[in-house]
């Protein structure tokens, strides 16, 4: 068993990466002085994974929303379900599915070993029957309806679909029609393909030790049989709708404005991601000239913000907010970006935004939930946990200006708007 330790002296933090003989990668970051232990057992399987690779190398399709449906059903068992087991330990257990991963988790301050045992056990013990699958249709149906009434959710899905050829993969929960096609057999197929330990990671942060985690892992992990699941690259057609709108029962007009990056590779690098966040803050942070102008012209309010969203097969710088005139806001931002590409970034503005990002990254290390999730995300990306903060500490103006020129394809953009009905 190989154990490697990673340290960051400035942060005064370290974590261990363990190659467990079962095939599972285990990441542990002990936090002295903490009572909480937070653990995540995650599969590299999210809503973007719409195909399973058959033995002959071809791909066959699975219904949209299956990853999320499986997440709900994995808690079930022919004996006691996982929630009932956690009820006996006092832990808070939960799970989530995103575009590119599914994660099962608990947070606790006592009974750590017992909780680790339950988490490792139930995630490795699928139990699906047609009856329990049918029962879940109603619950997830209500979850989907709740999302469909949420303007934030609609804005995001509509934007990503407009940028990526109307792809359904961003609608994590699927639709009531697509989930109706899911059977117990579908779930077993997906489980076998994506829940191989070689395709997963286990991350723990907080009140724990490597020894404690390994003691449970050695007992509980069954050797993996398969391999890392092959991800099918999404359609690379550059088919973009520059404007999409939806009318909803709201009083406020909201918008999300984003650019599709076309860099010819499935994932961006650490440097590209960190530089992008600094650039977005220079452009639209609350200390920027652009923010001030939009605010004084009453085109935005304090809800205005930005985000750099990236994963396997997608990379989108996003501006989001509320406005009476989203089109004008998006035009002004585009104009601002095009000017900035000509002039380059002001060194003072760069330094302010770099420091802000650095401080915000330091803050993330307070919270064991953030740490465990960051361990998972960086592992699936093939990066180390400290890579981003190391890059940020050494980031230069030249690197950022170079990134700025490549980051925005001024023709590949879309504006998504949610308008009041009637």
């Amino acid at each position: 068993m190989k154990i490697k330790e990673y340290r960051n002296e400035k942060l005064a933090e370290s974590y261990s990466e363990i190659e467990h003989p079962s095939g599972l990668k285990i990441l542990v970051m002990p936090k002295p002085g903490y009572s909480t232990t937070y653990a995540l057992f995650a599969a590299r399987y999210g809503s973007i994974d719409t195909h399973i690779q058959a033995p002959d190398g071809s791909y066959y399709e699975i219904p949209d929303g299956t990853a999320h449906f499986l997440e709900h059903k994995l808690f079930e068992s022919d004996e006691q379900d996982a929630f009932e087991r956690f009820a006996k330990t006092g832990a808070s257990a939960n799970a989530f599915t995103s575009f590119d991963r599914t994660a099962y988790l608990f947070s606790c301050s006592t009974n750590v070993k017992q909780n680790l045992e339950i988490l490792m056990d139930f995630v490795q013990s699928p139990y699906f029957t047609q009856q329990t699958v049918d029962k879940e249709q109603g619950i997830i149906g209500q979850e989907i309806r709740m999302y469909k009434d949420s303007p934030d959710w609609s804005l995001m899905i509509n934007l990503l679909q407009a940028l990526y050829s109307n792809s359904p993969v961003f609608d994590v929960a699927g639709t009531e029609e697509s989930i109706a096609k899911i059977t117990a057999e579908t779930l077993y197929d997906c489980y076998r393909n994506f829940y191989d330990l070689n395709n997963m990671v286990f991350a723990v942060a907080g009140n724990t030790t490597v020894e404690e985690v390994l003691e449970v892992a050695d007992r509980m992990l069954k050797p993996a049989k398969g391999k890392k699941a092959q991800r099918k690259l999404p359609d690379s057609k550059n088919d973009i709708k520059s404007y999409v709108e939806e009318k909803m029962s709201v009083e406020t007009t909201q918008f999300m404005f984003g650019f599709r990056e076309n860099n010819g590779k499935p994932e961006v690098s650490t440097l590209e991601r960190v530089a992008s966040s600094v650039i977005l803050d220079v452009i639209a942070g609350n200390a920027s000239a652009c923010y001030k102008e939009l605010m004084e012209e009453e085109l935005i309010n304090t809800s205005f913000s930005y985000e750099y969203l990236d994963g396997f097969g997608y990379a989108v710088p996003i501006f989001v907010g509320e406005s009476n005139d989203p089109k004008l806001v998006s035009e002004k931002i585009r104009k601002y970006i095009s000017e900035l590409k000509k002039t380059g970034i002001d060194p003072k503005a760069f330094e302010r935004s770099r420091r802000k990002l650095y401080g915000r990254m330091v803050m993330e290390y307070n919270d064991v939930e953030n740490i465990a999730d960051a361990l998972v995300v960086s592992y699936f990306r093939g990066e180390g946990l400290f890579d981003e903060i190391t890059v940020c500490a050494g980031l230069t103006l030249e690197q950022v200006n170079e990134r700025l020129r490549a980051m925005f394809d001024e023709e590949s953009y879309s504006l998504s708007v949610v308008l009041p009905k009637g």
Partner: protein
Amino acid sequence: MRSLSLFALLSDRITIDMGDFKIVGIAPGVRVVSVKTDVFKTGRIVMSMAMPIAKNTAAQAILPFYLRRACKQYPDFTELNGRLNELYGTRLSAGVSKSGDFQKLSINMSFIDDRFSLTDESISAECVKLITGMLFEPLVSDGGFVEKNIEQEKRLLIEKRRSELDDKVVYARSRCEEIMCADEPYGRNVYGTEEEILALTPADVYETWQNVLKESIIQFTVISSADTAEIENILKGKFSGIERSVIEKSAVPVRNAGEVKYVNEAQPVKQGKLVMGFRSEMEKSEKNRFKNMIMADLFGGGPHSKLFMNVREKMSLCYYCRARFLRDNSIMFVESGIETHNEEKARQAISDQLNKVKNGDFTDDELKASKMSVSDSLQTFKDTPEVLAAWYALQSTDESPISLREACEGVEKVSRQDVIDMSRVIELDTVYMLSGTEGGEA
């Protein structure tokens, strides 16, 4: 039990070390509650000012936002935000909430600990100066607040209010509060009405600021590795020049549930939202916070609760169905997102589950699961500076705050009979249903 009358003590500037935290009296009704710890990467300061909800709601609501926007030292918000960025992305936010009959105004700050700065500058000292400056040295012109800024903040507050109500979960809860508490301060929107916000003048808000300095119950909650002497000295200096006459903490009158109020409204949404408001007895609510905490958790807390196990898991009626108990108002809300045509079924199911609690129809395992879950969560609160600060800030109008450890001890003592007793005084007061007219074809 402690028998300290802290508000009385505070004028004597007494320091009390409670083990987990320290309380320092600054002036009548003004105190600093602090936890000294070096396990975090950041420090956290929450400045809470409590005023009655009754009059002046909008002027009080806008105040923390005006103060956060700019100050004498940084008159322009771009300049202020730029300075916060230089201070390694210091987070500064304003907020308003309500609890009991109080409206609580707050300004919150999180900043990285000096150990993690890339330069020699002391971030914490600078942040203490900044946040106290916001309260005592706001931006003024001609002896009043700046009209242009007040006008901007009025627009922003109205838009914030609308935007929050665009979330149908928030909207339905807020409507149920309005209907249920129509005759009491808590029934008011925390920001006041749009008309009230629109009518505000710079003079109103300036006067409110002066009243807040004189009358409000003020607590600075500080979680930091640094000594709190600096902030205490600044505050003592500032408050020595203010003649304080602190508002009385009015006892919220007992408001028993009468005939059940029912309101059903329709909107073009896909999911219906059901909110049921229950009342307990005020005296029982104040004296028995842990008993009520466990009762509400067993009934409608996590996945081990009655509502989750039955209304969601057995009946597949919803994705969420949960209960929240408001100690300061002696009110319990149950919320669920359902198919509109299932309203009757869901109401019945929720009532059935509450009756089971009232009749003691729950196992010792269920009780144990609730106690363990609540106590486990409470212990995790201390591992995030924001949550730990919020724990103490929420108690800013209590005579003496209690620590998380004391809360866990309190939870531990709750018995089966306590849960039954607490649930038996719970009565349904109001049912609010937001019906979705687009339910058929999602």
